[in-house]
């Protein structure tokens, strides 16, 4: 009886494996015979695609990392900088599909000016990268480590903490005031969600095709959303059903979501410095700092709504929430400044978008309470708040251009 079962099971295994074996055989056959090559004909040049992954400027010159994003191998023949053939070293010279190579070019670049690096392959195809504004690339060192940490603190930790200081005020607001503030936060976040998504698609479009940017971006967003959702479910299951606890969990989830989003912001700032847009840095930092103050608000408002008059929130707990939301900005700045890659930028951007979406869903759910969401949204303070959030974002965007 048992033996027969075992025989049955092994036959099932065989049936499961057979298609895979056949597929492997088919692929082998296609690789061997190359049916597509019959269409290509003889003497047709190979399809060459080379993308610039990262360009660094150092006292020694220009270092460029290039990636073969095409199906055929690419051989690097010569390098031009600003339309002049220049000495360079490269390892390896011939790149198979998805292989990277680093070019070291001892070119005396000029600070603050624009340079164009061109790579010529053995067939004479030219791939170009423009360095818009040449400034030295920060190297991992204590100095820059410190600067990035400071930027992270300025952008992430301090503003979120400052936003938390509104807690006593928010606690004393009436229901309508709270609704308005929450709706305003949702309005801001929704705008940010759309904007960050658009940016994600832009970055995705710039990636080598093999990396399939848009699915990657979307998957990162969905993953972050579901991870936060799962975290919420787990936390709620662990805790008792008291109202204060529910408020705490929501605040915690929002803090985590905002933390993920701030990681992306830190990354953006670090990368801006790393990619030679340091001149913009100070303005960016101020912009982020102001924005993140409203994130502090987003954390305390639901907390205030849930924990009404009687209970007090310990300062240390508030501070912990602030750190949770703000500290990732520091990590983001480090990553962006030192190990920036467009693929990771896209993934983090996706995490941020997913996290914002989840925060929006959380806040809306919490705002509505037992009421059906559409009916709640249609109340006057909520509508006014949503509209105000959107209008504020839109008009400031118009003004800044």
């Amino acid at each position, binding site marked *: 009886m048992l033996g027969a079962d075992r025989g049955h099971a092994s036959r099932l295994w065989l049936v499961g494996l057979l298609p895979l074996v056949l597929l492997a055989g088919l692929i082998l056959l296609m690789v061997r015979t190359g049916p597509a090559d019959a269409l290509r004909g003889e*003497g047709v*040049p190979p399809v060459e695609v080379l993308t610039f992954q990262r360009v660094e400027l*150092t*006292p*020694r*010159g220009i270092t460029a990392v290039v990636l073969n994003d095409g199906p055929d191998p690419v051989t690097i*023949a*010569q390098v*031009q900088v600003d*339309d*002049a*053939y220049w*000495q360079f070293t490269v390892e390896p*010279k011939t790149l198979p599909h998805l292989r990277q190579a680093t070019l070291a070019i*001892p*070119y*005396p670049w000029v*600070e603050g000016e624009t340079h164009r690096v061109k790579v*010529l392959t*053995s067939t*004479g*195809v030219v791939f170009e990268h423009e360095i818009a504004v040449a400034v*030295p690339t*920060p190297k991992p060192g204590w100095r820059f480590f410190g600067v990035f940490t400071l*930027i992270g603190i*300025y952008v992430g930790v*301090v503003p979120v903490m*400052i936003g938390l200081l509104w807690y006593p005020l928010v606690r004393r607001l009436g229901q309508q005031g709270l609704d308005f503030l929450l709706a305003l936060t949702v309005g801001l976040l929704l705008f*940010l969600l759309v*904007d960050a998504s658009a*940016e*994600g698609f*832009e*970055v995705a479009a*710039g990636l080598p095709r093999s990396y399939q940017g848009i699915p990657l971006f979307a998957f990162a967003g969905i993953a972050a959303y579901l991870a936060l959702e799962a975290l919420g479910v787990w936390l709620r299951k662990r805790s008792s059903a008291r109202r204060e606890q529910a408020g705490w969990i929501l605040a915690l989830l929002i803090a985590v979501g905002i933390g993920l989003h701030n990681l992306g912001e830190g990354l953006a700032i670090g*990368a*801006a*410095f790393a*990619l030679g847009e340091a*001149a*913009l*840095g*100070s*303005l*960016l*930092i*101020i*912009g*982020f*700092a*102001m*924005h993140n*103050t*409203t994130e502090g608000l987003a954390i305390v408002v639901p907390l205030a709504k849930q924990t009404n008059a009687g209970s007090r929130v310990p300062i240390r707990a508030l501070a912990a929430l602030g750190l949770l939301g703000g500290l990732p900005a520091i990590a983001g700045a480090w990553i962006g400044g030192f190990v*920036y890659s*467009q693929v990771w*930028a896209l993934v983090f*951007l996706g995490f941020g978008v997913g996290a914002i979406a989840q925060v929006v869903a959380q806040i809306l759910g919490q705002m509505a309470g037992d009421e059906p969401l559409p009916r709640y949204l249609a109340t006057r303070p909520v509508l006014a708040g949503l509209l105000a959030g959107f209008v504020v974002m839109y008009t*400031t*965007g118009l003004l800044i251009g």
Partner: protein
Amino acid sequence: MEGFSRRSWLRLAGVASLLGGTFWHRTPRPSAQGHASSSNDYGHAGHSLGTVGRVSADRFNPMTYLRSWNFAHLPPAERQKFYRETPRPDGSLLREYEIFAVDREIEIAPGLFYPAWTYNGEVPGPTIRATEGDRVRITFLNQGRHPHTMHFHGWHPPDMDGALDAHQVLPGEQFIYEFDAEPFGLHLYHCHTVPLKRHIHKGLYGVFIIDPKTSRPPADELIMLMNGFDTNFDNDNEIYAVNTVANYFLTEPIRVTVGRPVRIYLVNVTEFDLVNSLHLHGMFFDVFRTGTSLVPHDNTDTVMLCQGERAILETTFRYPGMFMFHAHQSEFAELGWMGMFQAEGARRET
């Protein structure tokens, strides 16, 4: 990092200030300046310019091309296949050439290959050199995949012009060009099939020298043809060179002797650009435009030629050492049109 729009960051800044949550931090200015801005670590910049590596000189050697005409670089038996001289009653020569058009990949910079159309497998094509009054007979066989012709600059009857529709030599066919060599001077030949730009810049051109009956004074004679290559088909040259290979004479200087006259046959066939030029460092030369007069037109150190224009330059090196020469369009010079003379011998006043 283009993906993160600056606008949205700034927008956020504006949002916050409108909300009234204005906090003005004094942000440090983490400018990278002072960190590594003075850049003195490049080595000698002059040694950094130019292509990297060496080309294979097995198929085509720009140095051999420099001092060879009428297939003189080939061993006699081999040369016989492509070039024959027969004396004529009036003392002149009948010069017969075998030229064939063939598609061939050529190396125009180290590791950089160009799908060329060639005369006899070389770019530039073989240099044809006759004396004024000689009879030139060229059997042209088209082994390429497109129609081609040979169009010579010089006196000839219209049916020898190789420019009209009726003159096209189709793939697999042949045509015999025959004419008297005149006037003396420095000329050129090239394919005149349309589209013209493509047929010329793909490599179908060469130098045609007609010597005066009383030959010019003896000199070290050098053939320099200024050309360019558009490797990515954007009607702009990625490579500029003299004798095809970018920077060849930068790594392999042309050896000349101090005190011995040097005669340069300079021809410009650069496509896409209006003019090209030659500038010689540290000395001056006589210019004989088109080489049709034995009296120099000019004495200068920079000569400019339109496409198809040519000039004979004569000079004598006075000092031993290295002398740079290049197009005085810096762009062309940095894209491969730069080389060196290495003058040997004791210093001499000339």
